[in-house]
Every structure is written in structure tokens, then in C-alpha cells.
């Protein structure tokens, strides 16, 4: 846990505020859903809305507590994160979701492997993509033949 470093200038921790805001938003969503459920039906002692209401109240209280803490703590020095490499990994995950229905498990997951490796600074992407696709195709075959489980199939998988 990073030490809060209070500075002379009383500037609040911005991230803390954003998190407090996020919690408040979540509290609203959960609370709204509870309100909707409360009006649906209630022929049991404790209905489906009771727990969501408690959780929403708890989230709201935590949002306030987080905001207060952010105010007290002042700005926190966090090391900068490198967005470039992270974007590669995210592109890998998003790309896998996008490619899966059309190109099947091997190609989509091969891309995930290549993009992740690239994010960690290892290229070239195409070589990793090829290696990843071959590896995933072997996995596909093992799953299909050994476990009788069909992973999403694409042009390569339909060959077998």
C-alpha cells in the first residue's frame, strides 16, 4: 500500500474522487434495480430487493468515505503507466473477441498471443501470430478429439 504523502498545498487526490464517483454510480445502478424489483412482487418475508438495497446503501457510504479520504490524503504520487504496451495487450483481447466468430479459435487466439508478446516488447508480430496459431490449432485438436469439446471453429478448424 502506498504511503499517502500529504503536501502543503491542500489539493485532493483526483483518482480518489474518480473512484468515489464510480462507487456512487454503482450504488445508483444497484439501488435503481432494487427499487424496480421492490415494485414487482413481494409475497415472501424477504424479497429479491432486500439485499440489493443493503448493498446499494453500503456502496453509497463507501463512496462518501472514499471521497473524504481523497480529500484528506492530498495528491498521491503514482508512477506513470505506459499506455502503449498496455494498448497492445488490450488490442489482443479485443481482437480475439472480434475475430473468434469469423476466423475461429486458432487464429483469434494466435492473435491474442502475438499481441501480448508485442506488448511485452517481443516481435515480430507475424512470426508470433503464426506460432500462436499453430499452438492453438494443436490445442483445438486435443480438445475436439480428447475431450469431445468443440471450441469455436473457423476456416482452419473446418479442415479437419
Amino acid at each position, binding site marked *: *500500500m*502506498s504511503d499517502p504523502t500529504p503536501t502543503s498545498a491542500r489539493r485532493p487526490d483526483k*483518482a480518489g474522487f474518480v*473512484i468515489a464517483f464510480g462507487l456512487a454510480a*454503482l450504488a445508483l*445502478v*444497484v439501488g435503481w*434495480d432494487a427499487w424496480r*424489483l421492490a415494485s414487482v*412482487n413481494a409475497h*415472501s*418475508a*424477504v*424479497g*429479491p430487493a*432486500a*439485499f*440489493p438495497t443493503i*448493498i446499494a446503501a*453500503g*456502496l453509497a457510504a*463507501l463512496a462518501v468515505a472514499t471521497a473524504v*479520504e481523497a480529500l484528506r490524503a492530498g495528491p498521491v504520487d*503514482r*508512477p506513470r*503507466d*505506459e*499506455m502503449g504496451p*498496455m494498448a*497492445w*495487450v*488490450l488490442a*489482443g*483481447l*479485443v481482437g*480475439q*473477441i472480434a475475430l*473468434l*466468430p469469423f476466423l475461429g479459435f486458432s487464429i483469434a*487466439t494466435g492473435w*491474442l*498471443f502475438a499481441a*501480448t*508478446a*508485442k506488448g*511485452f*516488447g*517481443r516481435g515480430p508480430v507475424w512470426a*508470433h501470430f503464426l506460432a*500462436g496459431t499453430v*499452438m*492453438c490449432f494443436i*490445442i483445438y485438436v486435443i*480438445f475436439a478429439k480428447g*475431450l*469431445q*469439446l*468443440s*471450441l*469455436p471453429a473457423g476456416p482452419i478448424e473446418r479442415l479437419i
Partner: protein
Amino acid sequence: MDTFAALSQGLMVALQPINLLFAFVGVMLGTAVGVLPGIGPALTVALLLPITFKLDPAGSLIMFAGIYYGGMYGGSTASILLNTPGESSSIVTALEGNKMARAGRGGPALATAAIGSFVAGTIATIGLALVAPTVVDIAISFGPEDYFALMVLAFTTVSAAFGSSVTRGLTSLFIGLSLGLIGIDLQSGQARLSFGIPDLLDGVEVTTLAVALFAIGETLSVVAAGSRADEIIEPVKGSVFMNREDWKRSWKPWLRGTVLGFPIGAMPAGGAEIPTFLSYALEKRLCRKPDEFGNGAIEGVAGPEAANNAAAAGVLVPLLTLGLPTSATAAIMLAGFQQYGLNPGPLLFVSNPDLVWGLIASLFIANGMLLILNLPLVGLWVRLLAIPRPWLYGGILVFATLGTLGANPSLVELGMLLIFGLLGYVLRRYDYPIAPVVVGLILGPLAEQQLRRALAISVGDPTVLFQSPIALALYALSALALFGPLLFFLITGRKAPVGGDED
């Protein structure tokens, strides 16, 4: 008692070379699928049932036993080395286990998990053979109000054990509780927080959340740290195997974990996750070096691993004595029995003693075989960490998505993996503990359902919650967990040893 005669008879059956081969195939398969998140022993046994029908009953049940225990070992190996919990009962293992692995102590972590699993599995299997009928009577007497009290105990002990900042720990817990609301409410059939998306109606899968928060969140954190995090992971620092001190710090957690795991596993609504939480909290409380918790304390691996394997044996208590399948795997095993025309139920021990004892004996064999196979492999396993980071993390992500896709080939499921992965990254970045999110997702719905069941049975009368002696005893324990440190301070005048920071 001819228990031992029956057991040795069973051992004779299980030790035949052909059956040893089945056990070997079983443990290998079990380990392999245990490593994959989302795909566990239950699914594997289910898929293999049609194939194994051609084998004789003894052979296939021995293989199932191997898969069952093998899955547990595989789950913890993935947790420790890859921070990718393969099974929901090995989530807690990842907390300390992966920290140890990163500090070059993966060997001892794997060893204490393997030996702890063996010790706990063996003791619990002996318990299964000797005291099953007694244990099951107690387990059956647990009503919804008692389960609710057990959940309260789990909440109080667990929330005290995660992290030092109350606000942060609670925030994580409440995020988990909110996620636990998603899906159709069991009691009323109403959809909650599903926004009309059919894929959300079944709720959030525990392994999906755990894998996303741990493995994907971690990958994102590490890649974002870039050069900052560029220290090389040393696979081995010091001894590959456990040293004297490791042994000294492990044996008591093993036993305590067993004591927690076996009875809770035997309860029809107990499960294998709760004992691992309780064991972690207990070990943290009792540890002489509490500041090591969060940085790779061996007790945090030894206890929960023992608890999880003891619970796995505990699950078989209601199955074999009453024919009650209380876990997915048990339900499949039941199907396995039925396949051979056996009707598990109160009469199974009487009508088919050879088979029951054969199964119990094969659990011993599987356990021993796993220990013998796993210990020499520890050195090899930890070498995984020597894989260059780009490939290691690429592989981790492939594994994480593969497990999810195998169990449910749905894009929404993959989308959840991505979103929860981002959540894991944000939580890490702003110093929020991860584990309470998973705890909230698991315990929240259980606590809610049990409470509502209790109140529905009593037609709304809340006093039912405080009438059972079991519930009262559990509440007393919760109070002790909450206020124990305070009492300690008031009596002795010094601060109770409380846990250090987590992550």
C-alpha cells in the same frame, strides 16, 4: 469392525497393475484439466463417462478418483505459478502462492501444497472411512439458519484478514457483492442487474471473475509498468524444496486446514471455497510473522490447500452415505454409479461394500500417486517461470481464455473476462485488495439465499435465526473474530498481532 478388512480388500483391488494404470491416466488427465480455469474435474468426468462405460466399474471409478484429486493438484499448480486459479477452491492459494513463486520460492510453495494436499486428503479419506455416518448426521442437521451463521462467520473472519485499510477492503468486498447480485434470483425467479442481456441471467461465473482479476489484471499491470517492473523473475532462490523452517511453518496449517475442510465439505451446502477462506484468515491470525502475509507466507498456501483437499474428501461423505450429490463432481460421480446399475443411497455401503471401499482405496492410491508424481516435477514446473516474459504472459492469456471458452464458448463470457481484467488492473493501480471481490461474489449469494430460506420456512419470523445452538455457537465465534483483538488489547495492554498489508 471389519472396516480395515474391507479397506485392505479395496486396496488389493486398487493396486492391481491395470487399475494402477487407470489411476495414472486419471491423475494425469485431472491435473491437465485442473490447470485450465473453467474446465474442472466435473466436466472431464462427465465427458469421459460414455468412454469409460466400456471399462469395468472398479477401473473407471478409480480413474474418476484420480481425475477428482488430480484436478485439485492442477488447480493449485496454476494458481501458484501462473496466478491463474484453475478451480474456485484454489483462488486463495494464488494469494500467497504466487507471491512466493515470484520471490523464487515457487518450489517450496508447490511442495507444501502437494504435501499438504496429501496429508489432508489422507486424513480426510480415513475420516470418510471411519466416521462418515456420524459426520453426515451432523451435516444434515444444519438448517438454513445455521448456514447463514456460517456465512456471517466467514464474512467477519475474512474481511478482517484482507488488507489494512477498512475502506479499501470493504470497497472491494462490496464490488464483489454487487457482482453477486447479477442474474436470476433463485428464490423469486426475478432477474437482477441483467439489463435484458440473456447471457447475464446465469450470473457471473466465479472462475471467470477470479481468472480475470488475477491473471488478466496482473498481466495488464505488469505490461503497464513497463521498464519499472523489469526485474527478472528468478525461478529458484535458495532451495527448490522445502527447508527446515518451511516444514516447521507448514505442518500445523495442514492439520488445521484439514479440520476446517473435512466437516464443511461434508455439509450439503458447505462447498470447498469457504474452508479455504476460513483457513487463510485463521493462518493469518495465528502466524508469527503476519507481515509476511501478502508477500508470500507459506502458511497461506499450506492451510488453504489442505482445507481444499479435505473438503474434496468431505463431499464424498454425503454422497456415499446418503447418495446426496452436493457438488458438481459428486453429481457426476453419482451418474457414474448409476451407469453400473448401482443406486447410491443409504444402502450403498451395505449393498455394494466392495465398490465403496474400492473407491475409498483408490482415493488413497490417487493421492499417493499425485504426491509421488508431483514432487519430482516441482523443479520442472518452476522452470516455467524462466520462460521469457512476453511468451509467459502470452501463454497465460491463451490459457485463461481457453478455459473460459471450453466451458462456455460465448463472446459475452470473453467480454466479461476483458472487463473484469480491466477492473483488476484499476484495483491494483489504486491499491485496492483483489481477493475480497471474489469473496463477495461467492459468499454474498450464499448468505442471501440461506437467510431468505430460513425466513421463508419460519414464515417471516426472525427469531428463528437465533434459536439453533449451532447458529449461536457460530455467532459467538464471529464475535470473537471481530472483537478478539480488542479484548486482547484490553486484557494485556498491548496491541494484538494483526495482519500486515495485502498486495
